[in-house]
């Protein structure tokens, strides 16, 4: 009887562990509420946003193409004279959601290098940052601590989730500090500027259109996705579904992989056992190489494929000569917020919604990007936009 009870207790404990582990280990946290039901594309599809993003792809951004992190698409400039400060040496504070994936790690290094330049020039004095480790509650208290300290001349926030962080951001705005939001948004426009690339719909549509253009009608496409319930990822898939629905491609399935290479390879191998796969659509490039290897190991011809501008994928693409595209979720956006902070503190105008360009890397541009990043690790992103910073390349190599 004793052992029975121990066994039952162990099983219960395991159940709890299982539940918690799945939430803490996930690369992005905000999926929790949505994972229980299979999220349909419709829930994540807003026609107006979709149309706007697709249109923004064709708009010529204002600014110098050599510095895409300073370009803006259709900006509405706002006056920031109220925030102007004399003398430079500003204290800039940054509340980061996390550095829990290679994309964020790359961007965080870029931001630090940009800060170093601005500190050298005397525009920024102290740069404080906090890392919430994908925990909403932690980030709310991080933001609160920055506001309460009263030391921050400008506050940069990369929110971990949209709805939960909104009240904390509003409280920060009310304190009178200029607030800069980037990457994911919040449900308030109280921030001075919201910086982001065009968005998830454009990413998903770029990829889907490439497959439609490069595959014969009737070809079979497999969609590999990271996890459900994350807005930027769901938007990518929702856009792809729109494009695929109007095409003659057959979608074999859409599978969640958690970005785990072994899982991706298993899934692709199983699909290949059941029949031909002509194209692969991915909502993010993590583990793309494992998908390609599954074709190699099965002796199947390479698919037409879309990954991301992660170097491991781009190098494999070059090596195999396959037909592919690297859609981009512009990593260089991590430079913009600190520059925006100095602009605001100097009383210069900034766009209220700062939409950065987001151009996929095509085969024609591929080799050039790989050459520039030749010494970079494989989980680095080609469009990180830090080639002209003094720390290049060592800062990004040694992470």
């Amino acid at each position: 009887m004793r052992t029975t009870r121990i066994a039952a207790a162990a099983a219960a404990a395991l159940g709890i562990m299982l539940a918690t582990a799945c939430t803490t280990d996930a690369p992005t946290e905000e999926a929790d509420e949505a994972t229980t039901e299979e999220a349909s594309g419709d829930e994540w599809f807003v026609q107006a946003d979709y149309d706007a993003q697709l249109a923004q792809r064709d708009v010529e951004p204002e600014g110098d193409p050599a510095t895409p992190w300073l370009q803006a698409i259709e900006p509405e400039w706002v006056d920031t004279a109220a925030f102007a400060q004399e003398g430079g040496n500003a204290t800039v504070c940054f509340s980061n959601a996390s550095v829990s994936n290679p994309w964020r790690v790359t961007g965080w290094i870029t931001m630090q290098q940009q800060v170093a330049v601005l500190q050298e020039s005397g525009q920024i004095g102290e740069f404080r940052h906090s890392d919430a480790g994908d925990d909403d509650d932690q980030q709310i208290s991080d933001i609160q601590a920055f506001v309460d300290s009263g030391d921050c001349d400008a506050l940069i926030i990369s929110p971990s989730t949209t709805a939960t962080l909104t009240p904390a951001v509003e409280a920060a705005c009310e304190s009178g500090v200029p607030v800069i939001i980037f990457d994911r948004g919040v449900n308030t426009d109280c921030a001075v500027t919201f910086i982001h690339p065009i968005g998830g719909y454009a990413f998903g549509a770029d990829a889907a259109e490439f497959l439609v253009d490069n595959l014969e009608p009737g070809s079979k496409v497999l969609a590999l996705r990271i996890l459900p319930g994350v807005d930027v990822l769901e938007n990518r898939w929702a856009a792809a579904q729109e494009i695929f629905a109007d095409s003659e491609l057959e979608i074999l399935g859409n599978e969640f992989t958690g970005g785990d290479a072994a899982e991706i390879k298993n899934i692709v191998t199983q699909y290949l056992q059941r029949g031909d796969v002509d194209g692969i659509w991915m909502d993010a490039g993590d583990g793309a190489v494992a998908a390609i290897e599954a074709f190699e190991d099965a002796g199947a011809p390479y698919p037409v494929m879309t990954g991301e501008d992660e170097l491991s994928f781009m190098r494999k693409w070059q090596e195999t000569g396959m037909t592919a595209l690297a859609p981009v979720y512009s990593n260089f956006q991590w430079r913009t917020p600190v520059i925006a902070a100095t602009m605001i503190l100097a009383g210069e105008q900034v766009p209220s919604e700062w939409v950065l360009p987001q151009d996929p890397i095509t085969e024609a541009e591929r080799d050039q990007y790989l050459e520039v990043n030749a010494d970079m690790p494989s989980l680095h992103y080609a469009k990180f936009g830090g080639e002209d910073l003094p720390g290049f390349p060592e800062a990004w190599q040694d992470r």
Partner: protein
Amino acid sequence: MTRVRELLLRATNPTATVFVLLVFVFAAVFVKNPGFFEGPSLMAFLKQAAPLVILAAGQYFVIVSGNFDLSVGALVGAQVVIAARLIDGEESRTFPVMAVMVLFGIAVGLVNGLITTALKVQSFITTLGMLLVLYGAIRLWTGGAPTGSLSESFRVLGRMGIENVPVLGQIPWALVVMVAVGAGSVLLMRTRFGRVLMAAGDNDRAAALSGARVDTARTLAFVLSGVSATIAGVLIGGFAGVSAQVGDGLEFTVITAVVLGGVVLGGGRGSVLAAMAGALVIEALFTLFNQFALPATLRPAVQGAIIIAAVAYAARRRTRPVPTATATPPTATASPTPS
């Protein structure tokens, strides 16, 4: 009539049940996709299942001696990341780094074992702590994302095999390693060490009083689990390369597999072969899910249900006396004999 009942009894014995389950799941896979049992596709399945089967063998030693090892998933992840960072694409470093990995696996097992036995910390807590320590330390060391890359020769074991075999196509090295680990484990459980391990899980005081070195055996079980995680790490890293998510959640999958194999949590009962078969059932089940196009997000829920159902089933078997017990020889019920 007695004969039929005896057969039925054997089939419902938790250890034997897993093999019945395996047949059922394979049958379902076959109905859905007859092509699955063609040589190359079956070999691909075994190649992909091998790491979990090996982990199940390692976990079996720990569970049968009355403990848990929750740190294996994090250890597999750590090993792959360490390998990528230290090898960094240099072929010549492959074997020295593999040696480092084995030492690291042994060290982690030893620490788990000593904390559990010498400091009397419950293994659930010890290994949960180790999971978090490894998880955090690796992220600290790599700055959040793995760097470096594995060499081609490192990847041979997990990715390649003996080519051009008639009918089968390719016999994966992973399968060879899996069979070797399985055979080694079965033999090990027949030695004195195996019997001490089993006795320690069944009743550690009785085992200690009869002169068995219970703590040594339990510590060694953790070391074996660490080594199995190292081998699994080599195979998984070889199979698919490095990613930040390698090994995530494997500890739960492997405990599910072992429990499904009829190994009793708390120790003292179950066979290593059944534990490994449990791992195959889990992998086959996930293949089946894929074939029915069920979302992968359903898996944790199914794993949880399996753990609870399997433990409840095993507990029911042992607490309620079988009405026909007098008519059948006692060997028909769950026997503590190792196999």
